């Protein structure tokens, strides 16, 4: 690997994860607030992330196994925000159904316990 290729590859790898994070951020905001630009912004970030993956695979001197790992990571990053979102929503919904009003009292007791004194 040349000196230039080393810096370029490192920057691409950083951009790869950063764009995945931005995709996750906008995806979650879009699900929370339903703003008109949030969903397209999340897709744009993932498209840029995917583009960076293509550049890494086609133009960097990493070996084939490492490139395969990058491709697999790219697919995993696509799934992480929706899977996490669904898990969180289900968790909160089940919690709400299971406890109903008791939940509020339970939280109040917990907080009171944490703050409690002798």
């Amino acid at each position, binding site marked *: 690997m040349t000196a230039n290729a080393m810096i370029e590859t490192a920057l691409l790898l950083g951009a790869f994860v950063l764009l995945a*994070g931005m995709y996750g951020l906008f995806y979650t905001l879009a699900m929370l607030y339903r703003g008109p630009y949030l969903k397209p912004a999340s897709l744009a970030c993932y498209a840029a992330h995917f583009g960076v993956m293509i550049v890494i695979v086609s133009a960097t001197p990493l070996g084939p196994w*490492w490139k395969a790992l990058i491709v697999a990571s790219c697919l995993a990053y696509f799934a992480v925000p929706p899977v996490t979102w669904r898990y969180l929503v289900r968790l909160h919904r089940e919690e709400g159904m299971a406890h109903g009003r008791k939940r509020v009292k339970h939280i109040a007791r*917990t907080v009171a316990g944490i703050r*409690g004194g002798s």
Partner: protein
Amino acid sequence: MYRSQRLALKYLAAAMVLFGLMVVFGILASIYYVHPTFLLNTFNFNTAKILHINTLIIWHLMGFFGAVYWFLPGETGREVEGIALAEIMFWIFCAAVAIVAAVFILVQYGASDEFSLWFINQGRKYVEAPRWAAIGILAVATVFGYNVVASAVKSTRRSGILMVLILDLVPLVVLYLDAFPAMTDMSKDLFWWWWLVHLWVEATWEILIGCIMAWALMELLGTSRRVVESWLYVEVALVLGTGILGLGHHYFWIGTPGYWLGIGGFFSALEPLPLLGMVIHAIYDSGTRHLRAGNRPALYWTLAEAFGNFIGAGVWGFMMTLPQINLYSHGTQWTASHGHFAFWGAYSCGVIAVLYLAVGGSRERKALDGRAWKWSFAMLNLGMLGMVGGLLVAGMDQAFFERALGGSTWGAFIALQHRPWYVEGVWTRMGFGVLFAAGYAMLMYDLLTIGKRRRGEAEEPLKEAAA
């Protein structure tokens, strides 16, 4: 207030004092990069660096202990078992830290013999404290473990968070034993030393802060126990699944077999995935409450923790974790950039969040707000971003010029010191370090006065939160 919570406040106060010392020695260390003869033969770079890194580790450890002592009585519904012993150990801990710091500053180094190892410096990076003090730290950690386990045993409540914490305490204490061996084979020494450094920082500490943040979320946002516990289990599984064998990225160049290149690179590449999940969780929890919480500083520092962890550990780490890049980047200012950002995001922000919760609790104020915390929040985070940015530029130039082009020769190292990108990078780091120090001063001012200032200012967010 429980005795344990009063002890927690002492631990958190001590952590803040050490945080300040870490900043002072950090700025001092940054000056040597722009004025290499600064305090030459009086107080050398290596001593400043030792103090900077060791205060970093100890203030976080004290912060974690403080956080657990704060939340534990609420969790078990009773006073912490063995609290008197814990109080004694706190003062022993403080005295040991003060003596070790005095020895590092006044004596600095000794001959290469057993006396130096026991009473001056163990000579192992990050755990330089002399052996007597290392035994003391082990005793403090053991008593802390006893406090947690005994309190859980005596309590009728056994929560999932507490069980995870207890399981985590075993490796937390046992791995510290790795601070003691003095092996003459450098490869073997580094092999085991990384078990302490990596598995503490990227495994046991991650779980510890996970438990602490779970309690913090329950108190801060009223998130239910079932939700935080379920999420904690998932996080623990993912963090351990990727973090334990991520250890391999430290084994690339220390003389270990070649298969570590594949293992270390593979698991390190997976490490950002759970961090992204944590970011989504943080946005979900704060977003569903429209960023409203009584204790606003704690909420913002909790969010900073999630984002800082992802960017500092995830983005910065992934840039340099594959062996092809790491060959050139390891041990440069690039690594320092990653280390600063990752520690800040993963741990420091979390400890500061707990500090605000403890301050609110101790002053019996559910709502905390004002202007000072916003200034300190902005200055500390901007200062950190500037420092890691400067270090990244300097580190990339170092990897490019000194390592890749210069072949890691002494001549290339000397020539690097005059390269514009490198010089500007280390100057930037020093400048933003001063900003960070100003943010620390503002943080201390705020922590000492918040909740004591005029009442109306602090109560407003509570009304918003209730709305």
